[in-house]
């Protein structure tokens, strides 16, 4: 990994890892002679987020994508590695600190029902960062700003007096977006922002997010498990499996010619809206337990191309002809079969 940061990257992540101690309490461990259990949620990953673009992270549950979001926001402290925002090292900064830097990056959460305090009014929910970061000094200023933000996300000023339970899921996600916009962030981290919503509402929120990105020239880190949504939102795409990035590169290249069997698996399992003849290929196996990941390439137990090298040596993330990087021995050795173009243009 090159330590230098390209000037057009807003965020740079170098070799971060996060290990969680999920052992039982000390007393139980001693009495029952159980070993410590360590879950490696994020395992030595690096990526750069280009300014004004959308960097998407895709993967199944438990692959570590939400942990990445929390590491970036300072909600977790990385076990190793470094995070730089606009060239400043924020690896060990607590969330919200330093304020002048943290206000430039904000986050939208997955669950619109859990991410808003049920006992607070909208005015106070959206007003909280305005006061914390000293953006508004007086109550009248806060009210004016909150009303402006509400109309920016498609709600009405009168909604400021309501409580979260008076809104639908989609409207709540709009509230979350309004709260994140209070500080005029340059980087917005979106952790599955539409996975709890119905499709017709999802398209409203995704369109809104695209419009806001253009209006305020924001960079997005967009985390999702849905490749179709990622296709729509992403400029750059990283595919994660068991805490590792297995493939990363420009969206078009990855969708046109995926260079990792796991990416291909994900693409094959996207439900298609045509009837007959194009059923999803049922893929064998499930994601292994991240506490005891398989040796070598962690995807080898589910991989049709696995050989002895795959079972013993972890592959490196190498540059492919299409412009993306992938971590696959089969691709290194030229054993990866040709990919049949997936979607009709």
């Amino acid at each position, binding site marked *: 990994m090159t330590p230098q940061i390209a000037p057009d990257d807003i965020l740079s992540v170098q070799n971060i890892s996060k290990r969680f101690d999920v052992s039982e309490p000390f007393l139980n461990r001693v009495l029952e002679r159980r070993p410590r259990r360590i879950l490696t949620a994020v395992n030595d990953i690096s990526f750069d987020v280009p300014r004004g673009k959308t960097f998407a992270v895709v993967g*199944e*549950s438990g692959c570590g994508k939400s942990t990445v979001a929390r590491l970036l926001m300072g909600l977790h402290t990385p076990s190793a590695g470094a995070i730089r925002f606009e060239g400043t090292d924020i690896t060990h900064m607590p969330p919200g600190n330093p304020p002048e830097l943290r206000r430039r990056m904000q986050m939208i959460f997955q669950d619109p029902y859990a991410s808003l305090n049920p006992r607070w009014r909208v005015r106070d929910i959206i007003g909280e960062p305005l006061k914390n970061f000293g953006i508004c000094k007086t109550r009248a200023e806060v009210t004016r700003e909150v009303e402006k933000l509400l109309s920016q996300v498609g709600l009405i000023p009168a909604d400021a007096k309501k409580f979260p339970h008076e809104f*639908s*899921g*989609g*409207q709540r996600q709009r509230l979350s977006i309004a709260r994140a916009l209070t500080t005029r962030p340059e980087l917005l981290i979106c952790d599955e922002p539409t996975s709890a919503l*119905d*499709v*017709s*509402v*999802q*398209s*409203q929120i*995704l*369109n809104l997010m*695209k419009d806001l990105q253009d209006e305020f020239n924001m960079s997005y880190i967009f985390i999702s*498990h*849905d*490749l*179709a*949504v990622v*296709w*729509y939102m992403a400029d750059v795409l990283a595919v994660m499996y068991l805490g590792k990035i297995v493939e990363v590169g420009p969206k078009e290249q990855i*969708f046109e010619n995926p260079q990792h069997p796991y990416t291909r*698996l*994900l*693409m094959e*399992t*996207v*439900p*298609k*809206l*045509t*009837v*007959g003849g*194009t*059923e*999803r*290929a*049922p*893929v*064998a196996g*499930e*994601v292994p337990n991240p506490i005891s990941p398989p040796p070598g390439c962690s995807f080898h137990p589910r991989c049709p191309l696995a050989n002895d090298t795959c079972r013993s040596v972890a592959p490196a993330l190498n540059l492919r002809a299409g412009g993306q990087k992938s971590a696959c021995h089969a691709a290194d050795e030229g054993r990866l079969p040709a990919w049949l173009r*997936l*979607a*009709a*243009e």
Partner: protein
Amino acid sequence: MSLLELDNIVVEFPTRRGPLEAVKGLSLDLDEGEILGLVGESGAGKSITGAAITGLIEPPGLIRSGEVRLRGARIDNLPPEKMRRIRGKEIGAIFQDPLTSLNPVYTVGEQLIDTMRVHLGFDHKAARQRAIDWLAEVGIPAPEARLDQYPHQFSGGMRQRVVIALALCAEPKLIIADEPTTALDVSVQAQILALLKRLCRENGTAVVLVTHDMGVIAETADRVAVMYAGRLVEIGDVKQVIEEPLHPYTRGLMASIPQIGNRDRRLTQIEGAMPGLRNPAPGCAFAPRCPRAMEHCHSLRPAPQDAGTGQVACHLYGETA
């Protein structure tokens, strides 16, 4: 005769501000061995329709009027004890969370064996052998060893396989599957759907597949019923509903699904949101959001009428057009 008939059922939840109608008069029927997809957004009433069939509407909710008939016999007015028998023997149920269908204190084998002994009259030895066969059938490796394990020892996908085995082992004629793959990862979803489809085809079991996911419907169902605000807006063959939907709501819904390869800069969106259950409007519930709404759409509720391969409830079709 159809296997299952819903005849104008109304499901109501009494509250202190008056009753809320979650399902407002819904009729459909299902043939033997047919897979019917029931789609709609959250709050459309699709899960409650499923619960009305299995008699599992949570009190104080109730079926206010209408009939549910299984092979011509009413089952919506049966006493709970009889309904429980029907639920094991005639109707199987699969839910989103496999843990709601599995008892955590019994092994998977005990639950399968018990079900078959009660409903099929097998003796213990025969039931055990069938249970092993069933686990193998739903794709669980080393079924003999897994038989004596508890539900928590299985992964999410494996648990849903066990639930499918449990729902099918009493050889019911009908399965109600309520979002059976929503809690699972995409790569596992496809496995479970393929399994469910294959087994139901082999055993001639009919399925009501309740889901919000059109992709799941497209690859699994024979016919689709689309619900909106407690009513059926469109029903027809899966190919027609997915590829040439008639109702403006279904069209909007299909168009708003992001598709890989689509290069439009904006997704198609349906403005607004589904109306709540309180204060229903007199006309078509979709009229306020409908791009093709006419004046009488706001005052006159469209009745379902024959169109395409099934029925559609919209003034754009039929003699009121």
